[in-house]
């Protein structure tokens, strides 16, 4: 029996030892992961003890800073509503959102050497300091994009396709984060949902901009599709349903079909490649994923391949099926074509420094997805260049620079079509990729394309 008692005793002591290891794991390995959960009410308490760090744009412009107002630290957003959707807010009453919440661990000095430093600061009764965060956003371009949207509801996403760095991420309407607590009751009742970040959380039918994805899938499934011609009679019959085109385009190949945005050709290309291949292509573009930019992105939604009947497939191939995507995802589609099929991981936070200026984290260009081949991208790019030169997207043209683009006018149950434009420039060596969406505003070519054109033109002039 002594032997049994000994073994049992060792077992119980081991159980307790496991607790010590597990507790160490929770604290050391998992670190502050649990602490920075926006539901942790301690964050609000820390807020009053810590001088929260500053958020800068890529040029060093202050986007968020902490000033003293009376006894309490007050968060100030010098660019106001312009960056509201990116930065989010911290509010005692209404919680935490946006990058302010995602970067809490750095801004509140809970990471790296700051953790130990602030521990000592607290013991000594000194002010605790948070670290600083620098974004990839250029506040000038951000402001310009917002101005270009004006009073219209919509979103603009501008990024560097070579790195994935997001230069502008705009959602309209906006709100003033400096007055959040006063205007909150109106904000949540406003029918235009100003709190919604349309650029990443919006769910829109992509319309004809999705033909880029359909083209990539068709060319991957059957490389000789590039030499095939289609005869557009302005109508395509699918299982007894008639799919109407905007015009009778006559004999077109795939490039021409992109340039003139021929519905019947792309519906046919969708049917030819089959539901399975179509869905695989959508996934290859990362449309079903949240790429993890620091803001929650709504993954695109679609019917599962088994449920896609031919009429749904033909509709989805021209962006009018059950498929819903965010403007960010469509900007990534453009970026993937621009970067020869190699999609870089999009990101918003460039560098994170602790309160002493020591760099804690530096985001670099990272490969994300192998979307398609350079050959396929070349064919699609030619079609997109033609679309801007002489097709549906001429309004996106920029003097002296070759722009590639694709428009969309997405039908939806809420009224006029959503105006879409996605594209990149300069076409031969793209440095900018863009997606513009304007809700219920008419055709992509006349409403969205000019916004993209002006934004690209200004960005190129600024040296991007």
């Amino acid at each position: 029996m002594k032997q049994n008692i000994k073994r049992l005793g060792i077992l119980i002591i081991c159980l307790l030892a496991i607790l010590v290891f597990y507790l160490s794991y929770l604290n050391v390995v998992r670190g502050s992961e649990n602490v920075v959960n926006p539901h942790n009410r301690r964050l609000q308490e820390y807020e009053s003890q810590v001088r929260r760090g500053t958020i800068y744009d890529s040029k060093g412009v202050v986007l968020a800073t902490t000033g003293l107002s009376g006894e309490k630290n007050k968060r100030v957003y010098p660019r106001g509503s312009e960056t509201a959707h990116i930065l989010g807010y911290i509010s005692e009453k209404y919680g935490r959102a946006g990058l302010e919440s995602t970067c809490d661990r750095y801004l509140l000095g809970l990471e790296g050497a700051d953790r130990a430093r602030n521990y000592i600061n607290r013991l000594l009764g000194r002010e605790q300091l948070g670290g600083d965060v620098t974004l990839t956003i250029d506040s000038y371009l951000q402001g310009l994009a917002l101005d270009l949207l004006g009073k219209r509801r919509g979103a603009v996403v501008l990024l560097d396709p070579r790195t994935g760095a997001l230069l502008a991420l705009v959602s309209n309407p906006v709100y003033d984060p400096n007055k959040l607590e006063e205007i909150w009751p109106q904000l949540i009742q406003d029918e235009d949902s100003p709190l919604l970040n349309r650029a990443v959380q919006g769910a829109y039918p992509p319309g004809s901009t999705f033909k880029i994805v359909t083209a990539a899938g068709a060319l991957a499934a059957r490389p000789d599709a590039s030499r095939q011609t289609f005869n557009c009679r302005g109508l395509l019959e699918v299982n007894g349903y008639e799919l109407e085109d905007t015009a009778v385009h006559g004999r077109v190949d795939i490039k021409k079909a992109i340039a003139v945005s021929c519905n019947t050709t792309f519906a046919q290309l969708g049917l030819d490649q089959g539901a399975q291949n179509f869905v695989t292509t959508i996934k290859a573009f990362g449309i079903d994923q949240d790429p993890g930019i620091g803001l929650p992105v709504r993954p695109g939604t679609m019917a599962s391949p088994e449920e896609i009947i031919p009429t749904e497939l033909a509709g989805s191939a021209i962006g009018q099926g059950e498929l819903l995507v965010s403007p960010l995802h469509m900007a990534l589609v453009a970026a993937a074509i621009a970067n020869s099929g190699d999609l870089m991981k999009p990101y918003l936070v460039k560098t994170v420094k602790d309160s002493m200026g020591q760099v804690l984290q530096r985001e670099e260009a990272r490969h994300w997805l192998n979307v398609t081949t350079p050959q396929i991208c070349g064919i699609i790019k030619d079609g997109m260049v033609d679309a801007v030169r002489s097709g549906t997207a001429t309004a996106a043209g920029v003097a002296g620079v070759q722009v590639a683009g694709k428009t969309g006018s997405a039908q939806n149950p809420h009224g006029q079509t959503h105006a879409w434009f996605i594209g990149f420039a300069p076409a031969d060596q793209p440095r900018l990729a863009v997606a513009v969406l304007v809700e219920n505003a008419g055709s992509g070519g006349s409403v969205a394309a000019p916004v993209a054109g002006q934004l690209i033109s200004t960005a190129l002039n600024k040296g991007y």
Partner: protein
Amino acid sequence: MSGVYYAASHSNIKSPAGGRKVERNLLFLAALYLLAGIMALYLGESGSRVIIAVAAGLTVAAAFLLVHVYWKASGFKGDHYLFPVTAMLISTGLVFLFRLDPYYGMRQFIWILAGLGTLVFTSRVLLDLRFLGDYKYIYALLGLIALILPIFFGKEQGGAKSWLDFGFFQLQPSEFVKILLVLFLAGYLAENRAVLAAGARSLGGISLPGLPEWAPLVIMWGVSLLLLVFQRDLGAALIYFSTFLAMVYAATARIFYVLFGLGLFIAGSSASYLLFDHVRARVLIWLNPWPYIDNIGYQITQSLFAIGSGGIFGAGLGQGYPGYIPLVHSDFIFPAICEELGLLGGAGIIILFMMLIFRGIKIALRVRDEFLALVAIGLTSLLGLQAFIIIAGVTRLLPLTGVTLPYVSYGGSSLVANFILLGLLLNISHEADDSL
């Protein structure tokens, strides 16, 4: 503390009976720890609140030493380490209760005094425990009655209907029944050990004892478990069950029984998972509490926030926000300790329990009488498993089942019962010393 402990660990057998120097020195440390804790809590403050807390701290520290003086005078030869280690746990609990809510601090203070009285009483009246083995069926009967009472006359609290309301205080019978359970099992196993270990007949290559030998065991276990299910006291059920398995293993060394027991456990927990919503909810929030952060997952996520916020060194006594955790003064006192004393403080508590278990096992190994050895290992397992179950629960290592952290959590029944447990262990060690 462990250094002192180790350096002295071989001297106690040789120390003159009635000397108890090791205990005295360690108790001085515990008393100092308690007073330092109380002082740190009210650093730089004044007023009646401070005076009451400091007075309570001084009284408890003095009471610790008084118990020691009494034992020394009466020639008690119980283990020198059990009481000081327990005193450390009790002190931590008292300081934290004053910090969390002085109301609970004051009540715990009274309970500690009552508990210390019980401890002295136990060490005097039950000094020779061997006779206890003869009344095992009385314990079984008493235990069952004590468990049935709350079902009819009980008061529901925290989802469990396991309290008896006596007006100015409430009694949780299951805390006391756990000791009766150990006494019953020890008596029973000591008597039937040989038969149970060897088995009387063979069934498919596994030798099994006859029905009369093991039926009482299973019945006792099954009934107590059923009662607990009716009381919805999952924590106590888990402790009873694991202690039962531990003692059967210690007595028989037969893995078959353990496997059989685990099989029963899996069957029982699957059945209750299917039958009871509150069991399903526990499993659900164990697997992933985050989607339920606003309702059923609130408590456990608050606990995880507290533990995470503490870091390695803790926020410092009185500097954290453990008040966000519901029931922080009782089942959830451990995350409060982790938040303010950090990983080091939390690990310290666990190490104190390891010391208790270590001493308990030494006592069980040292005593010659089989019944007493089984009581010692049973009580030790009970203590260790209870600490393990609640700490694993609040850290989300295991599904949460509400039990108190022995000697630390607020609770009169728990405290007094655990003092009786301590007294019994000490008496057995006294016995062991005699038999050397």
